[in-house]
């Protein structure tokens, strides 16, 4: 920034901290024509506000937790479009559709604008001073054990600040909850590799065998993996990479596989052991452990033909290194840990450790490392709520009323808390039950530092900075709120920080040596940091230390046929709606699901064979009933699902939140059983069993594909080349 003569004061002016940016008021595209507004030219334009010229600022995408760096286009003080920041090793200038829609979160008409205090059924607008005073009052005389703080994944300085606040309250009940976290896989990885998330080198693998890891769609860091995938497809040492995807319901990654292997739900671990057996390369205790898993038995249990198991083993043997991934579809069972352990064992047997499963870089500040959300946290919070343990509950970046399985009766338990504070962007299902709702800045208005869970290369800290002035005057950043709350508790320690910006700047500048800024003065360091949007760190590399262990590996026999609930229920993760926190962004609602092309609604995927058995045709409204409850939605006949399973995507079925989310589709969490993984206590998302019945109603499904169901009819639209040995690296 100094190079281009751009100094901090000007920067702040652009960002509105100096109170400039006169062009902001009212930007409706017709109001000037209508004569409601007058065009006022800049008397003295702030630097870098040149009418008609877009300026770009780096920040971090907050639409999911992958931590992609973004480059926002700002014109006349308004952020218009987000591009990827090419300097980030995570997304290298690329963006997904979900990330693109970040501007629709920021400009969302349903965002909360004022602090609201419950008054009966209504929210009464109050001032921030009153809100803070109310929190202080409610915390008076409440012991630390009686306070709970529920949040989504947090990292960076926000995590530090939050930790300090909880410490000031004497509260140890911080529940970090993410509805779709790979909690079981993390634990299994920790055992097998010594780290929770190793670096998966897809671009170095000649074969990727993925057990339900939708790495192109919604798993861990999809934009990063997509780039690796593109490299993998072009060539790995002169051979085009081969992707095999094993899962009961086809994901986007499955749709891109060379071979998609439908498997009986829950038997992923059995197949993994069967492959180890078929490889026949292991000795000692591993060989002993897989001895019983011969082709006949594995095929019978998994439903995968014996020939297919042989083919998979043969190609894994032939092409090395390979990479085996355990994902969401494999971990969602009571024996999910066992499944994941068996799958990870394959990587050991195939010698992939250190080649495609690599050591990961960690940020050398453990206090800033991400507090990773999981679903076990929800259970312990829910247990505490049910027991009436908590008098005050804070909630930030989580919507458990929407995402908790129906069987937990979270909503009822929540009512037992005396005073509930929600820091929220929308009046979502959880905020609706709060007593005090505090409106947050959007991610494009707020300051922050974020440490991604999945590090692509070296360690990095992502900088989040405002791309424009606050859209609504009465929203606050979560950092600012925590700072204000901390000032109530420890005024001496925090009195020097006027706001979170000051705190962040001080924290970073004080440690500039560690952040690679030893040679420059504070001002330059800070400006450079903001310009880049990323702090790249030397990082400590956590070496892989796990070992190939079979101790305790025990896979259960396949489930018996359940007469009453004959079908396995798979709550699928849609690439753009994910856990539903972004459902109020209309671009995402109108972005067709890649596999069904359905928009603006939920649907139940069922295999045509099973549908014929039940007499179901496309568009039939069906009732899906589990032990917990039932939901009704439209049926979509989909050959990419195991006939013993049905699937409904997560993310729809909001009862609140906003005009683009409320009332569309159904929420599959409502019928979810509360079954947990035996080892980790994580929610077993795929353990619910259901039955399907017709209601007699039928609708025309709103979808993008034609009535012919997207078959290639006569015309060769896109041919498929099948070949044993292709190298696309020579192509331009």
């Amino acid at each position, binding site marked *: 920034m100094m190079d281009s003569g751009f100094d901090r004061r000007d920067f702040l002016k652009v960002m509105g901290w100096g109170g400039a940016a006169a062009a902001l008021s009212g930007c*409706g*595209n017709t109001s000037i024509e209508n004569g409601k507004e007058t065009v006022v030219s800049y008397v003295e334009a702030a630097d870098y506000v040149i009418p008609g010229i877009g300026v770009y600022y780096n920040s971090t995408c907050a639409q999911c937790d992958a931590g992609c760096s973004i480059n926002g286009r700002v014109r006349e003080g*308004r952020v*218009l*479009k*987000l591009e990827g920041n090419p300097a980030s090793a995570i*997304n290298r200038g*690329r*963006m*997904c*559709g*979900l990330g*693109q*829609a970040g*501007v*629709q979160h920021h*400009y*969302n*008409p349903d965002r909360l604008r004022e602090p609201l205090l419950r008054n009966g059924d209504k929210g009464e607008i109050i001032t921030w001073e009153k809100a803070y005073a109310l929190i202080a009052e409610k915390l008076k005389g409440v012991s630390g054990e009686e306070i709970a703080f529920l949040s989504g994944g947090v990292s960076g300085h926000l995590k530090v600040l939050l930790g300090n606040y909880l410490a000031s309250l004497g509260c140890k009940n911080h529940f970090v909850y993410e509805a779709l976290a790979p909690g079981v896989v993390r634990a299994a990885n920790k055992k097998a590799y010594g780290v929770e998330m190793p670096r998966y080198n897809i671009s170095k693998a000649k074969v990727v065998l993925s057990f339900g890891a939708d790495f192109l*769609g919604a798993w861990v860091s*999809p934009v990063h993996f*997509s*780039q690796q995938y*593109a490299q993998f497809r*072009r060539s790995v040492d002169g051979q085009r990479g*081969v992707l095999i995807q094993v899962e009961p319901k*086809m994901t*986007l*990654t499955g*749709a*891109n596989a*060379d*071979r998609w292997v*439908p498997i009986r739900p829950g038997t992923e671990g059995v197949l993994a052991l069967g492959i180890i057996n078929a490889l026949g390369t292991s000795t000692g205790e591993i060989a002993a452990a897989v001895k019983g898993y011969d082709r006949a038995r594995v095929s019978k249990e998994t439903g995968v033909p014996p020939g297919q198991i042989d083919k998979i083993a043969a190609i894994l043997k032939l092409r090395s290194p390979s990479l085996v991934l355990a994902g969401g579809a494999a971990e969602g069972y009571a024996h999910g840990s066992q499944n994941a352990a068996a799958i990870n064992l394959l990587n050991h047997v195939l010698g992939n450790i250190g080649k495609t499963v690599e050591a990961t870089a960690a940020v050398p500040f453990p206090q800033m490392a991400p507090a990773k959300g999981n679903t076990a946290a929800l259970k312990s919070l829910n247990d505490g709520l049910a027991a009436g343990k908590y008098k005050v509950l804070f909630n930030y970046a989580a919507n458990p009323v929407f995402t908790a399985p129906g069987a937990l009766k979270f909503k009822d338990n929540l009512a037992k808390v005396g005073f509930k504070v929600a820091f929220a962007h929308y009046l979502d299902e959880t905020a609706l039950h709060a007593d005090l709702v505090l409106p947050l800045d959007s991610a494009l208005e707020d300051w922050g530092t974020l440490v991604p869970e999945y590090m692509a290369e070296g360690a990095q800290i992502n900088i989040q900075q405002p791309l424009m002035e606050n*859209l609504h005057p009465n929203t606050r950043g979560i950092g600012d709120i925590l700072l204000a709350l901390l000032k109530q508790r420890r005024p001496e320690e925090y009195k020097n920080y006027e706001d979170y910006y000051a705190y962040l700047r001080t924290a970073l500048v004080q440690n500039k040596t560690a952040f690679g800024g030893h040679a420059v003065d504070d001002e330059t360091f800070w400006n450079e940091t903001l310009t880049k949007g990323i702090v790249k760190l030397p990082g400590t590399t956590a070496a892989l230390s796990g070992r190939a262990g079979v101790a305790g590996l025990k896979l259960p026999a396949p489930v018996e046929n359940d007469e009453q609930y004959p079908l396995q229920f798979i709550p699928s993760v849609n*690439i753009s709606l994910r856990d539903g926190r972004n459902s109020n962004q*209309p*671009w995402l*609602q*109108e972005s*067709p699901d*890649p596999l069904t092309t359905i*928009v603006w609604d939920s649907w139940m995927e069922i295999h*045509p064979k099973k549908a014929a058995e039940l007499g179901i045709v496309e568009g039939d409204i069906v009732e899906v009933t589990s032990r917990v409850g039932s939901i009704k939605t439209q049926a979509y006949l989909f*050959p990419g699902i195991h006939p013993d399973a049905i699937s409904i995507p997560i993310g729809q079925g909001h009862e609140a939140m906003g005009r683009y989310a409320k009332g569309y589709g159904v929420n599959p969490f409502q019928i979810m059983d509360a079954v947990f993984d035996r080892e980790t206590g994580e929610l077993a998302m795929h353990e619910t069993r259901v039955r399907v019945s017709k209601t007699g109603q039928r609708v*025309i499904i*709103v979808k*993008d594909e034609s009535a012919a*169901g*997207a*078959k290639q*009819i006569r015309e060769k*639209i*896109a041919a*498929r080349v099948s*070949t*044993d040995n*292709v190298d*696309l690296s020579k*192509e331009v």
Partner: protein
Amino acid sequence: MSISNLLENWSQFRHTHPVEDKPHDPYKWAMTIDLDACSGCNACSVACYAENNLPVVGKEKYAHGQAMHWMRIEHYWDEDVGEEGGREFPDQGAQFLPMMCQQCEAAPCETVCPVGATNHTPDGLNSQIYNRCIGSRYCSANCPYKVRYFNWYDYPSTDNVWPAEMAQQLNPDVTVRGKGVMEKCTFCVQRLAEAKVKAKSEGRIVQDGEVQTACQQACPTSAISFGNLVDPESRVHRQWRAQQVELDKDKQAKDEKEGGTELRGYRILENMRPYPSVMYLERVRESAI
């Protein structure tokens, strides 16, 4: 444009580009999409909404086929999947194909416009002049790719399309279209115009990589490349040459050979002779597994 004028000057309205009097010099914008890299994730489509002020029409209008997605992802399954006697599962996955205006060199839409609202630019774009369009929709009827989108409603004044807050996101470089106007992919002409003006002021032509379309910029697998086909150094030019796909031919080297070939490049519905400016690279599937 009277009928007599149309008939007398037929060749002027129906010709392939380039022709001698209107050479593609110095630009001919073209695109390549690698279907083996494309994962069907929809990032391009959403990026297009963000860049080009596309209205979100809502469920009801979507059901009526009135979606305005200039870039849509088509997906295809093998014909025998789920059929009687066919394969039970789509075990070789789906095929995704991003579809948008192919910027045809002999565009079927151009010749039928009664008011000349859609026509060809010297840099090889099929352009749409919004304020000349009278909404006859002939162009859409005549488009073999079905990539023209009609404004059946006045979206700026329709509830919840662009509420006041969201209107602030609209790209000022792109017109917000009103009711009764046809629209379609422009290859992000606003970006091209900016790059061309900048290059011209510096006394040069636009370099390869200097301008990206919104879809190309977002694409997580870098499946889309875009550039100047006239420029022999451009990636698009090199790709087209390597795949032996020629702009003004309706049959390519690949079509001459039966069965397997090293060439992957093809253009869609080439036999109808619209001479599209978008080349697709076939998807490859491993048969060893």
